[in-house]
Each structure stands twice: as structure tokens, then as C-alpha cells.
């Protein structure tokens, strides 16, 4: 059983984000109107907290710090964005949003395998 309830269907307003703690794992839930995305709560660029730095408009999440942006339905990178957004599987069931959490999704800012990690 890896599906966990994150919140109710109406708990995150359209075009907003909200951070949840799912059994110790921080997850940002994005409501982009046509659907939801569950993602790690930091920008893969420079670790900005997306809860504060992001804007969701017309199915695009933009981190306002350096303007990296992703299309939320396809996860397609926009403009000069250089890293993909990681995303948890998600489903709606009985008025709840469930996320599939096997392990915390992290971006590799701090990988310890020397040298090569620098380019990730």
C-alpha cells in the first residue's frame, strides 16, 4: 500500500499550491484547474520554496525567482528551463486526492558522488 491520502478535493483552490506533509515527506499539491500535480516543494533550479515562489496560470507553473516554468499537464519545460520537474503519481478517489509515495523525490543538488554530481 503506497497510496496515501494527501487532502480533500476542495482543499486547494484553483491555480494555487499548498504544501502538505505526507507521513514525513513534504509534498506540494498544485491545482491547475484541469487537474492536480503532486511535486517536491522546491524548485529544481536553486531550491527556492515553490510554496512562496510559484505562480500557477493557464496550466503553467512558474517559479518567479528565475522564471523556470513547466506545463503542468505534460510536464514540458518552458523557455529557458533546464531541469524537469519531478512528480508523484496521483489519483482522485471518494472525494480525496491520493498520492503514490514510495520514497521522497529529491533533486540532486547535494549528491555525494563527487565531480559528476556537479552537472546534474
Amino acid at each position, binding site marked *: 500500500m503506497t497510496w496515501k491520502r494527501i487532502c480533500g478535493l476542495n482543499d486547494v483552490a484553483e491555480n494555487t499550491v499548498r504544501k502538505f506533509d505526507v507521513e514525513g515527506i513534504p509534498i506540494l499539491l498544485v491545482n491547475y484547474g484541469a487537474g492536480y500535480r503532486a511535486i517536491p516543494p522546491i524548485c529544481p533550479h536553486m*531550491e527556492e520554496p515553490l510554496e512562496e515562489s510559484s505562480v500557477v496560470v493557464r496550466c503553467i507553473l*512558474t517559479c*518567479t525567482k528565475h*522564471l523556470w516554468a513547466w506545463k503542468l499537464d505534460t510536464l514540458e519545460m518552458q*523557455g529557458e528551463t533546464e531541469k524537469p520537474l519531478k512528480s508523484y503519481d496521483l489519483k482522485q478517489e471518494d472525494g480525496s486526492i491520493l498520492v503514490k509515495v514510495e520514497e521522497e523525490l529529491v533533486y540532486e543538488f547535494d549528491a555525494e558522488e563527487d565531480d559528476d554530481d*556537479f552537472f546534474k
Partner: protein
Amino acid sequence: MKITIQSKSSETTFDCGDGEAILHAGLRQAVSLPYECATGTCGTCRARVASGDVEVRWKEAPGGARLKPDKGDILMCQTRALSDCVLKVPSEIAAIDVPPAPRRGVIRNVRKFTRDVVRFDIDLSSPMKFEAGQFVVIDCPDVVGARAYSMANFDTEVDRIELVAKRKPGGTFTGWLFDSLDGEPEVAVFGPLGRAVFRPHEDKNIVSIAGGSGIAGIMSILECAIQADYFSSHKGSVFFGVRTLQDAFYLETLARYVASSHGNLDVTIALSDETAITPFHADYPSLRLESGLVHEVAGKAIADGVGDAVAFVAGPPVMVDGAIRRLITCGMPSRDIRYDKFS
């Protein structure tokens, strides 16, 4: 010294002079190393020293907060090479059209604009080409650390650049500048830098949101647009935020631009600490007045969209963040929003 840059997919080599910042050395030789502020605050020019000896000039630079010095991470704007070096840089490297160069300059015509803003010229040792919206980095002998300033003037090639500085409490460079109103001090000038540029052939409307001395780069963009008669076929909106009307400057120039704009340029002065008692400026009635924070005033004005436009944002970080948020909320794609974070 020879610097070799290994990027994700390529390797590039360039020469670096004694005591020269590695970032400057690469950029002046048209190697497009990553950077934004060039003054140690943003962290964009990070690199990892794979081999060679280096010296870091400003070890406490805030842009270096997330570096791992034990792994050889450095900011290229703050680092000099002591031997041939190999550096890893985590982005793609391309060529630059108009590479920056080091020049000497003499500060002239320092004039107080307001209680805490001065304008000054720098006469350059050789002419410089730049694009409207770019900046230079200035190093003066008496103050440690370089400062970035946007050009407020524009021409295809200039011998003299016009800059605007705000005096911050405890600001050593601006303090030095305010105190040298009578002299003609020499400085080192490196530039042009910055990618938040206006190019008339882009054929888009212009939205500009600036706070305080951030208006400088916008003035260069407007001058460039007026020279190209850009407003005969495009619209422009300028939102200039200041605390009170006493803190506003360049009003005469802005009014002149409006007069030459075929009715297509709107300028609004947003007053954050004072109520605008009239809708238009008493002496320059072509300039609108509004009360409120400039990004909020701009946000209201552009709420219905701005058409096919490019936006320029400059000012204090809080204002820049607020303005970017409004622009994105109004539906502007992030690729059309330009700013340089060197505040």
C-alpha cells in the same frame, strides 16, 4: 594563465590575466559563461575547480552561500587564477555577439537628483557598444568590491555613459560617490553585461516596471525606442515607483519621450508613501500619478492583458518579485519578462 572550461557538452579555453576575474576573462573573449549580477550576489557564475590554483577575492559573497568550497566550488566573478586551471561549469557555453571589455573611466558630472539618488557620467578610455538595458561593473580604488550600474543613456557607440546610483545606509560605494562630488576619480569599468535587453526588431509592445534607481536601464530602452521611432507602431507603458513626488527624477526626459511617441507611450509615476492628489503631474501633465506600490499599480493597469509585449523589470528585489508575479498572472509568458538581479 590558461583557463579551460568543461561544460556539459563542450570544452573551451581562454587566457586570463594576472589579477583578472575569471568571469571577466571569459566574457571579454566572447565565451558566454553563466552570470547574472557579476558582483557576487546571485550565485549564477558558480564553477568547480578541477585543477589549478585560484584565489577567491570576496569569500563572504552572499551568492556563494550554497557552494561547497571543500569540493573546489567558486564564483567566477570573485576568483582569480594563480596558475593554469580547469573549471567545470554546469551549463552550456556559447559565443557572445558583443563581448564585454575592461576599460578605464573618469567619473564626471556627479549631480544630486533627489535626497538619496545621484546621477553621474563616466568618460570611457575607449568607445563602447552596448544594447539598451545593459549594465557595467565598476571598481573604484578606494572601495572593496565591484558595483553594477545600468546605463541610462543610449547610442550605437558611446564615449560616455550615464549612470544612476541610490545612496543606501552604510553603502560604501555610494557614500564615496556622494563625497566625491568635486573630484574626477578614476575607476575600472567592465562591460557591457546583462541579457535584459531591448531589441527594436522584436516588434513587440513594451511594459516597463521600475522602482527608484531601477529606472536607469528603462531610460536607455526608451531612448533607443525613441531613436528608432518605435512608438509610431508599438505601444509602451512605463510604471515608475518612488516614495513621494520629491523622490521622482527624469520627469522632464520622460515627458519629452511621451511627446515624441505619437500618443503610444504612457508613463505613470506610482507614489508608495504619498497620496497622489491630482491624476496628472502639475508641471508635466503628460505623466500620470497614482498612489500605491508600483507593481500593484502596474498590475491593475495591465490586468486585462498587454497584447504581444515584452516586459522589463528593475528595482529593489521585493518590487522585482512582485512585478514578475503580476506579469505572469496577467498571462505574460516567462520568456518575455526580462530583468537582471543585481540589486
